[in-house]
């Protein structure tokens, strides 16, 4: 409790609060601009935080950006029918039609309020679950960590849009990319082909910058000629009435809880949360046919859930050092950059770090609400920055940002190389999220597996006899089998449909 109050008090002092304001504002603006995403912004900012005086301020800035960017996607989803971030895909279905029929302010208002409520409800789960889960996670041994990482990879491969094989391929490619360099257990050089620069392997940030940012820049340049129609933003009807609150109460709470629990599952992020909540709202609605026509229930369910996933995803991050989403994976990179070891022991060794993250999440939600209600009309104007001007600037930041961490030219080439790699993966619809999770967690999985085998004299029996490890393994196997079966069924249905059409 003392650490929580101390962290909250620190954030409310002038300089840290300024970082919170700046982070939220930048996150909202970047989240609103189609072509940019929170993961891009946070990845580009992490190298700069290395030079900040305090790592608490760095965490405040990054978590505030996280909250802002997920919320900001609502603006372009509603006014442009283009989700500013993947988390806002479902918001386009009802936000844009409502804006089109002359109620953009009302659409934005529902989204902003729902985002705030989703954030607050998930924060309640975050603050109440984290200390207990951290205590529980301290009892984890190497087998539990190994099976949890495998479960995270399988979950994200199976629940990401697209083919299961491609999701798994992405995950193992990420693991493979992390292996050249020094073996963490023996200190031996491996898979370097004798190239000196590979002795330290591929550093996390240049890889992230390449895969997430450079590849997206190339993709948006290719689509530079796509035209978008912008609906003028308005503040009319932006505040929900008491009647609206009463009507949406159940939807808000249900969608927030769905989003929070989806977020807690390792590796899965806001887009899946909003899809699940939207689907649930539609299935439970008395008027499901209204979904997709500019129905407020659709906007509320999508936005409450996608913001709720932030708090949920922070739970495994602060308690176990396992990313709840791709952005959390980047936050792990930030923690490591500042010599902080993510995991349950952080609550013991430096409790102000997890509580800074937890408190920032809450305060940033309040800041987001005020900022978006007050300035959504002006933020909407920034969305039309021409791609031709924006993309070269972002590419330049990636290149210089890659260099800035270790002053190595090699890192610039890594960013460009992985940019092409990420671009090729996306061209054939291999999802990038499992790649990043695999890259970040491979080292942990390998070292825990080898520690476990050393402790058990080479036997894998603890995988099946230790209850928690066995549970994680069972979930992984179940998800693998279920996902392949589901894909096979969908493929069969599509083949039959094509046969009938012919």
């Amino acid at each position, binding site marked *: 409790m003392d650490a929580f109050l101390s962290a909250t008090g620190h954030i409310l002092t002038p300089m840290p609060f300024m970082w919170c304001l700046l982070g939220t504002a930048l996150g909202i603006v970047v989240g609103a601009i189609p072509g940019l995403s929170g993961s891009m912004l946070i990845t580009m900012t992490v190298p700069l935080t290395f030079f900040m005086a305090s790592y608490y301020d760095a965490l405040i800035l990054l978590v505030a950006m996280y909250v802002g960017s997920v919320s900001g996607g609502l603006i372009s989803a509603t006014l442009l029918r283009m989700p500013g971030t993947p988390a806002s895909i479902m918001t386009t279905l009802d936000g844009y039609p409502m804006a089109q029929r002359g109620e953009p302010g009302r659409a934005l208002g529902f989204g902003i309020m729902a985002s705030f409520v989703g954030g607050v409800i998930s924060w309640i789960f975050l603050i109440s679950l984290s200390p207990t889960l951290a205590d529980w996670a301290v009892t984890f041994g190497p087998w539990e960590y190994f099976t949890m990482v495998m479960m995270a990879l399988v979950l994200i491969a199976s629940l990401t849009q697209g083919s299961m094989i491609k999701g798994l391929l992405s995950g193992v490619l990420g693991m*493979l990319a992390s*292996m050249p360099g020094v073996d963490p*257990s023996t200190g031996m050089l491996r898979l370097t082909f004798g190239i000196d620069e590979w002795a330290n392997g591929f550093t996390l940030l240049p890889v992230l910058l390449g895969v997430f940012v450079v590849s997206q820049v190339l993709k948006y340049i290719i689509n*530079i000629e796509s035209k978008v129609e912008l609906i003028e933003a308005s503040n009319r009807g932006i505040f929900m009435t008491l009647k609206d609150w009463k009507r949406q109460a159940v939807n808000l709470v249900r969608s927030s809880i769905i989003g929070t629990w989806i977020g807690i599952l390792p590796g899965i992020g806001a887009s899946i949360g909003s899809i699940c909540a939207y689907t649930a709202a539609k299935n439970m609605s008395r008027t499901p046919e209204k979904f997709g026509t500019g129905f407020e229930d659709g906007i509320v369910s999508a936005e409450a859930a996608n913001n709720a996933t932030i708090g949920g995803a922070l739970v495994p991050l602060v308690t176990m050092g396992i990313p709840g989403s791709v952005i959390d994976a980047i936050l792990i990179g930030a923690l490591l950059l500042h010599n902080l070891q993510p995991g349950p022991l952080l609550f013991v060794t430096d409790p102000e770090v997890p509580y800074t993250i937890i408190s920032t999440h809450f305060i940033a939600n309040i800041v987001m609400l005020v900022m978006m209600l007050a300035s959504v009309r002006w933020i909407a104007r920034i969305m039309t920055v021409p791609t031709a001007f924006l993309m*070269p600037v972002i590419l330049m930041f990636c290149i210089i940002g890659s260099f800035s961490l270790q002053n190595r030219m090699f890192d610039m080439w890594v960013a460009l190389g992985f940019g092409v790699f990420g671009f090729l993966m996306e061209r054939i619809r291999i999802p990038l999220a499992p790649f990043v999770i695999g890259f970040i967690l491979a080292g942990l999985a390998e070292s825990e597996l*080898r520690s476990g085998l*050393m402790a058990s004299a080479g036997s894998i029996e603890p995988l099946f006899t230790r209850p928690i490890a066995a549970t994680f393994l069972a979930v992984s196997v179940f998800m693998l089998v279920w996902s392949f079966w589901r894909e096979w069924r969908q493929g069969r249905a599509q083949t039959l449909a094509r046969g009938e059409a012919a």
Partner: protein
Amino acid sequence: MSQRETSAILEISISILFVVLAAALFVDSLDLPESLREPLGSSSVPQVVCLLVIGFSVALIFRSARIVVKERARRATNASASSPQAPLFRKRLDLAAKVFVGATIYVALMQTRLLPSELLTPLFLGSSIIMLTEFRRSALLPAIVVAIVIGLGTNYLFTDFFYIDLP
């Protein structure tokens, strides 16, 4: 050729690249010595991961090859099928390639240290923006202004604010 067939061929090509990459890493890992102290050693996990990459890539190749065969058979039997819908806008792979080559030259010149980054960064920005606006006269002046302001501003930010020595 249908879009499905083109995508499948692209999938096959890129999957072959993954197989070659994983095979090269697998062969390199064979030189790693066995461990005396622990059951796995440095090579086991990389080898398993390489084999998984190869396995999934081969599965993808087979799946894509089946799609190519089916699409070709469909084309052969259904010659009067309607042509695919024209895209709503032109895809500019050429522009992306040019900007990427520009970025490569930018990094290569920084590596040679023939020119300082204060000069190279605005040059890269300006040339990229001008290429992307396709040399439109109306965009020339804004491109130059943005290139100078952001290029020099970024250099100042990194060197004098963050104290990072840029090349």
